[in-house]
């Protein structure tokens, strides 16, 4: 049961075979048993979780079940919640309690979900390995010497090890898809504007988008359906977005007539050969399901990482200015004067990767450099968006590897930020173009200390999450990758 899907848990709840309280206890036991090894959760309040579960069971018996009634959902420490701390895994927000819920948290509550703790992440979502967290690194359930990916590493590890059946993450340059790939789960970043960003601590406002991290495609559809929709409190959430029938899209079992683009820029020398072979095999499977694989080109792909690492830090440099020691968060002791308070509070509160990005962004925006960096990067962004528009004239969806490499060892790349940045090479362009992207497991490669999961990324035109879900559901139905579980996590709660 712990490795059960959200859909099955929902069915069991609806059938009266279990209760929200029982589920909460099972997963709390699993967190107690395994979180020390994984460090997936940075905050979990059993009393609050059980109280929500009891309220959910009461609601079910009094009024019937809502969409996610009684289902435990873990959320990344970037989502503001009225209950418990919201710290973005940063020392500068240590002890911060938001007096409000993020819009998506409100949506989860309205759907009857049980908010199940805060998960580990890279500080302010800046990282690809979860190693920049102020609460220490999170570990990959498939190999505890390895990173789970990032920045939503805690959510990924929690779902992969079944410490929670599903989780929310955020994705600015791949922060849902890359850790989903590296931990063998399914993650969806919706179209920019599909999900409200209000109450989600901002990293890069024009790129950030919340999404789902689950065991299966259908689970992802369930969770995204619950959080998606217009919010008048977020001017970038789109009011007249085309609707998606999330669950119906998951009924697809074949790919007849589907044209899948295979961009040559995403199958290149320098990427891990076994990862490449695994993804190629997945595409061959798609052909068997009736799809036509079309070779395409996204010619500006090679500039995506550079453009991203100008735009995202630029926006972040302003977004993080509010952490100044004045109103909330960390303030240094005994400042000499205002400048000393600013510099020491921020120096003590931010970790080195966050500082690096604030500096990079401030530099890119500064007078005399703006045109060469920020403006140029925005021009590249336009070209990348156009690449995709051109490609979708020829194909329905695009399939690529999610990450060029499987999970790497903790500490292996921490001294080499540029190499670290390249682990997002296949996910970043999707954010720059504002498109929906989904990663699902498509096989395993041999790594040190055992097998490591590989992710297949699907990219669709804006607002076509249904196309992603249909392709992914058909592939998932034809393969067994989601049924594979990491070893060592089947003890506590397993009896339920």
């Amino acid at each position, binding site marked *: 049961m712990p490795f059960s899907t959200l859909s099955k848990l929902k069915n069991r709840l609806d059938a009266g075979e279990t209760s929200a309280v029982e589920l909460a206890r099972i997963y709390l036991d699993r967190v107690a048993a395994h979180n020390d090894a994984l460090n997936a959760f940075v905050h979990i309040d059993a009393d609050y979780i059980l109280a929500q579960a009891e309220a959910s069971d009461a609601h079910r018996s009094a009024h019937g079940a809502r969409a996610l009634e009684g289902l435990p959902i873990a959320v990344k420490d970037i989502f*503001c919640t009225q209950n418990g701390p*919201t710290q*973005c895994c940063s020392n500068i*927000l240590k002890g*911060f309690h*938001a*007096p*409000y819920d*993020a819009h998506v948290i409100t949506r989860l509550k309205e759907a009857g979900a049980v908010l199940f703790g805060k998960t580990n992440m890279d500080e302010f979502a800046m990282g690809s390995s979860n190693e920049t967290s102020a609460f220490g690194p999170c570990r990959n359930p498939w190999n505890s010497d390895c990173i789970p990916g990032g920045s939503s590493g805690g959510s990924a590890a929690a779902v992969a090890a079944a410490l929670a059946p599903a989780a929310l993450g955020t994705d600015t340059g791949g922060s849902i898809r890359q850790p989903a790939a590296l931990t063998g789960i399914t993650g969806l970043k919706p179209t920019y504007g599909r999900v409200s*960003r*209000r*109450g*989600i*601590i*901002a990293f*890069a*406002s*024009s790129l950030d988008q919340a999404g789902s991290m689950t065991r299966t495609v259908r689970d992802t559809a369930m969770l995204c359906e619950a959080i998606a929709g217009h919010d*008048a*409190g*977020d*001017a*970038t959430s789109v009011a007249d977005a085309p609707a998606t029938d999330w669950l119906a899209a998951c009924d697809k079992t074949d790919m007849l007539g589907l044209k899948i683009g295979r961009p040559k820029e995403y199958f290149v020398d320098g990427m891990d050969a076994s990862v490449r072979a695994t993804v190629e095999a997945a595409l061959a499977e798609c052909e068997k399901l009736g799809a036509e694989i079309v070779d395409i080109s996204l010619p500006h792909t090679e500039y995506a990482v550079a453009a991203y690492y100008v735009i995202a830090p*630029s*926006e972040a*440099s*302003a977004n*993080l*200015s*509010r952490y*100044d020691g*004045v*109103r*909330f968060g960390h303030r240094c002791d005994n400042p000499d004067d*205002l400048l000393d308070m*600013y510099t020491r509070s921020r120096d003590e509160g931010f970790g080195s990767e966050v500082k690096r990005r604030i500096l990079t962004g*401030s530099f890119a*925006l*500064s*007078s005399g450099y*703006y045109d060469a960096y*920020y403006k140029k990067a925005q021009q590249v962004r336009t070209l990348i968006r156009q690449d995709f528009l051109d490609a979708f004239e020829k194909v329905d969806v695009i399939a690529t590897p999610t990450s060029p490499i499987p999970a790497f060892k903790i500490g292996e790349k921490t001294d080499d930020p540029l190499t670290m940045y390249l682990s997002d090479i296949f996910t970043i362009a999707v954010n720059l173009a504002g498109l929906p992207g989904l990663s699902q497991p498509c096989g395993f490669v041999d790594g040190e200390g055992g097998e490591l999961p590989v992710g297949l990324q699907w990219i669709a035109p804006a607002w076509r999450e249904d196309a992603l879900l249909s392709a992914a559901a058909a592939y998932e139905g034809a393969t067994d990758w989601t049924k594979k579980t990491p070893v060592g996590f089947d003890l506590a709660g397993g009896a339920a």
Partner: protein
Amino acid sequence: MSWETVIGLEVHVQINTKTKAFCGCSTEFGADPNSQTCPVCLGMPGQLPVLNMEAARKSVLTGLAINGTINLESKFDRKNYFYPDLPKGYQITQFPVPIVELGHLDIPVGDGEKRIGITRIHMEEDAGKSMHEGLDGVSHIDLNRSGVPLMEIVSEPDMRNADEAIAYLKQLHQLILFLGVSGANMEKGQFRCDANVSVHQPGTPLGTRSELKNMNSFRFIKQAIDYEVNRQIELIEDGGEVAQETRLYDSVKGETRPMRSKEEAHDYRYFPEPDLPPLRISQQEVEAIKAGMPELPGQLRARFESEFGLSSYDADVLTQTRELAGWYESLVAAHPADPKRCANWLANELLGRLKEMETDVADSPVSAHKLAGLLDRIADNTISGKSAKDVLDAMMASGDDADAIIEAKGLKQVSDSGAIDEMILKVMADNPQQLEQFRAGKDKLMGFFVGQVMKASRGQANPAMVNQRLKELLKA
């Protein structure tokens, strides 16, 4: 050496929306510190701005009133700097694409007019207030003003002396009040001006400018500009160079002095605000805003001159504020027979008395309707103009009707021709010598007889009738 002064002005106008620019907090002035704040205007994590469209509409209205070009798509940007009363560490403003561009305002200069170009009007949010005085080494921050919508109205460097600058500001101030887009109260900081001032010799390139801040009245603005112009000229004539810097005006010492360089060494790192999509306004919305445009001071002046036959001076005086012009129109409506008399009594008598009371028509103890009642009594010869002034004094003091006061004081004018004739005949009988001289051709004595009759009536005889009847009876 002859010097030419070049002045450009940046005016920040607080837009009088009920709620702030990007959140639902009240903009009411004078509330308890930090009582009108929410997570958005406090810059809390994850909070997002949503534009108050009313602020945009009022900016468009202002843009139309200065004959500006309305950008149907304008953009928001972030202006980055750290200050404790700026919660987000950046101000949301409009940089490359403001909501209004290229307008102008015609100002009176001498007997003519001068056109002052307006480069742009952009929308932005206000910061909070820091308080340092008398707090024993700590500072307090009040964020009630944080996020209040502003329009920044930037002029071309078209003004050549402080008087032109003041004329422009007064014209703009009046326009803003007429449009009803701001309280424009300078003491409350709702209308704030920064001045860019430089001097050069005509025919040579423009001089280096300094930016003057901290001037919260027209008088101080004039003093600051005059001081700065002299300072720059003396500096250059002594072989020095003007530095491009921000200078604060000290109204106590009457001088400008540079801000500490640390405070102004800013690179604001402007970039597009990713939390707000471009502000789009349709041509139809602009037309609707235009259709709702109130009558502007210039139009009102012209109408007062043509419709009511007022002199341009009176028309100007009575259109200083929308309230005053409205008051005048109410007065004319209640006393339609003589708009000029209405203008004289309002401009010369009532306004003077209100000024002494340090108030204005909005709080006048005498309403337009009551003043019309007084003017009616002058028109029907119940009282003379002279005694009407006394009646107005009494009305100002008590708020009573003119009729009640005339009655109570027994000021009713004698216009009964029989009674007047009787008085005249008595005066003639009492002064036979003068009558003889008058009839012999000494016309000057007319004044003597008028005076005697008025005296006999204790000032209540209708002077026009006295004159008329005297002429007839004396010659008989």
